[in-house]
């Protein structure tokens, strides 16, 4: 297991360095003054200009600048917005809300997706299976903001079950609707994967064996089938984490959840490029770490993964 963890860490390192470098390079390697371009139409005050130039170490060569910038990021200094707010403070304030939203969304996605996928897989080809496959297809084809507006309009405005926008302090109850929207993005993938996995497991000898020795399906389904079908579903969460990040940006913006995504959404609309770059860098770092974490979890769940195929 130690060897496996070490190998994974070593594999993640270049990805980590490379991806942060790529984002940095996109902003700072394009010809022209990156600071002036960040401002777009506006002209910065001399103080802001000087502060930004110092922040991004523009007097240094490109590679040194990147290293200094990453050093700052790791020391926890993410710079300031055009308004002079500290990006750290913004993230500290907003991150807990996003975390709660994400936890809620992943929980809804897993519970509903796995349940529906399990039932569909056990009753392959029956009406429930076909109907849920169709619903999944429709959900996949709806972009996240369409889904969010439909939910907001229907549940929030027409039916009035939920509040259309999240109230101050973002109580859990208000987060349910945006979480459902986020969960719906990945629901189809979770459901299909569980279904395929259940169908595959259901055909295994150990399942037939379990039934053969007289176990009832109340025991075989959760213990023998479900547990063995969940492994690919777990990794899928990591794979879909990217969808979740983008989805959260849009969903938080629409439902006015005071989270990181909403902050990114507002920063994009304000053309506040330093903030956009900082937040995207942090999100990519989180994305890489989550993928690493899930990879390690995968190794715990399925010992076969730990062995290197030679």
């Amino acid at each position, binding site marked *: 297991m130690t060897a496996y963890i070490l190998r994974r860490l070593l594999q993640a390192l*270049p*990805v*980590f360095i*490379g*991806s942060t470098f*790529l*984002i940095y390079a*996109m*902003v700072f390697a*394009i010809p022209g003054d990156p600071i002036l*371009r960040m401002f*777009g*139409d506006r002209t910065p005050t001399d103080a802001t200009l000087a502060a930004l130039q110092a922040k991004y170490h523009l007097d240094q060569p490109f590679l040194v600048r990147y290293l200094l910038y990453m050093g700052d990021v790791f020391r926890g200094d993410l710079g300031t917005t055009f308004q002079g707010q500290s990006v750290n403070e913004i993230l500290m304030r907003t991150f807990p809300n996003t975390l709660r939203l994400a936890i809620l969304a992943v929980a809804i996605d897993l519970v509903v997706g796995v349940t529906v996928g399990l039932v569909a897989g056990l009753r392959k*080809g029956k009406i429930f299976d076909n109907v849920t496959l169709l619903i999944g*297809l*429709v959900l*996949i*084809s*709806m*972009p*996240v*903001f*369409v889904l969010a*507006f*439909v939910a*907001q*309009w229907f549940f929030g*405005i027409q039916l009035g079950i939920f509040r259309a926008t999240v109230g101050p302090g973002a109580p859990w109850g208000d987060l349910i609707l945006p979480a459902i929207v986020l969960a719906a993005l990945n629901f189809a993938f979770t459901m299909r994967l569980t279904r*395929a996995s259940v*169908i*595959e497991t259901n055909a295994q000898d150990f399942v037939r064996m379990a039934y053969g020795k007289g176990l009832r399906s109340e025991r075989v389904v959760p213990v023998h089938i479900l547990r063995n079908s969940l492994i690919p579903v777990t990794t899928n969460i990591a794979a879909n984490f*990217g*969808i979740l*990040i*983008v989805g959260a*940006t*849009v969903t938080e*913006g*629409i439902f006015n959840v005071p989270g990181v995504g909403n902050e*990114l*959404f507002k920063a*994009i*609309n304000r*053309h506040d*490029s330093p903030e*956009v*770059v900082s937040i*995207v860098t942090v*999100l*990519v770092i989180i*994305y*890489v770490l989550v*993928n690493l974490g899930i990879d390690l979890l995968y190794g715990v769940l399925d010992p076969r993964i730990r062995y290197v195929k030679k």
Partner: protein
Amino acid sequence: MSRSDAPAAPAPAAERFVADFTGDELGAVDEVRVSEKRSNLWLDAWRDLRGRWMFWASAAMILFIVFVALFPTAFTQVPPNDGCILSVQNQTQADELGVPIGTKISDHGPLPGHPLGFTKQGCDVFSRIVHGTSTSLSVGIIVSIMVAVIGIVIGAFAGFFGGWLDSVLMRFGDIVFAIPYVLAAVVVMSMFLHDRNIWVISLAIGAFSWPSTARILRSEVLRVKNSDFVMASTALGLSRVRTMLAHVLPNSIAPVIVVTTIGLAGAITAEATLSFLGVGLPNNIFMSWGNDISAAQTSLRTNPAALIYPSIALSLTVLAFIVMGEAVRDALDPRARASR
């Protein structure tokens, strides 16, 4: 023609050790039906596709979308952008729309000739949807071609030549894959404030979405490259590159077609999402469904039509390409078919 038709009656002197096929029940098993049509992966897939209503439905939908994108004026004469009025100013406009002078047109419901009503800016919703089709489709097609070309080149070289080239290309792919492509496009687009157009946005989306195509092609190439026919072509003296182009690629391209079709839907979604976020195409120059949906959100309570109809158009377009991709995948991959 069956074996029994073979003219060769044994020469009288020759001893026969093999039972005659005719009249033998086992003979039927050995018969080779030469009359069967010749077939290959693509013919098989096509025969399978022909029988799927999902394929025909999505094909009809896609043809319709392409037609709308090419000939928007066949569906509406109303200009999508200029000619927007906030309220009826004069008698000509009043006669045209059939409402009294002074009527507020902004967010107005349907009027004769304007079946879906008006946006907040007083533009015709239906016309904007029709004219927005070509934007979505162009971005989708440009991104797909770009992603397919980059993905095929990188995947094929990495898989076929292996070694250090494989390691370098695939690790690079891992790095690009680690950045969610919409986020990357957000950063790229916020660096291009003034000269945003269809090419820039396509480049921003495509530059970060090729790794999955490259990975899929690479694994197919790895599977195919040890086949006997590849060895045969090497033995016949074909160069490595010729072998790759003529024998390996055609036999490993099938999954790429599927992933490209579904990717086209993803690119359309990405363009709409970027436009929605405000880092997409400039609103006053390009019709974009994402822009329209974004603009309509402020009047969601009073005029949901301006938001809902572009959303439906967008979702149906995406759905058409996803269904097409899945139908093609089922047709091309017999294993996926079996587990259905």
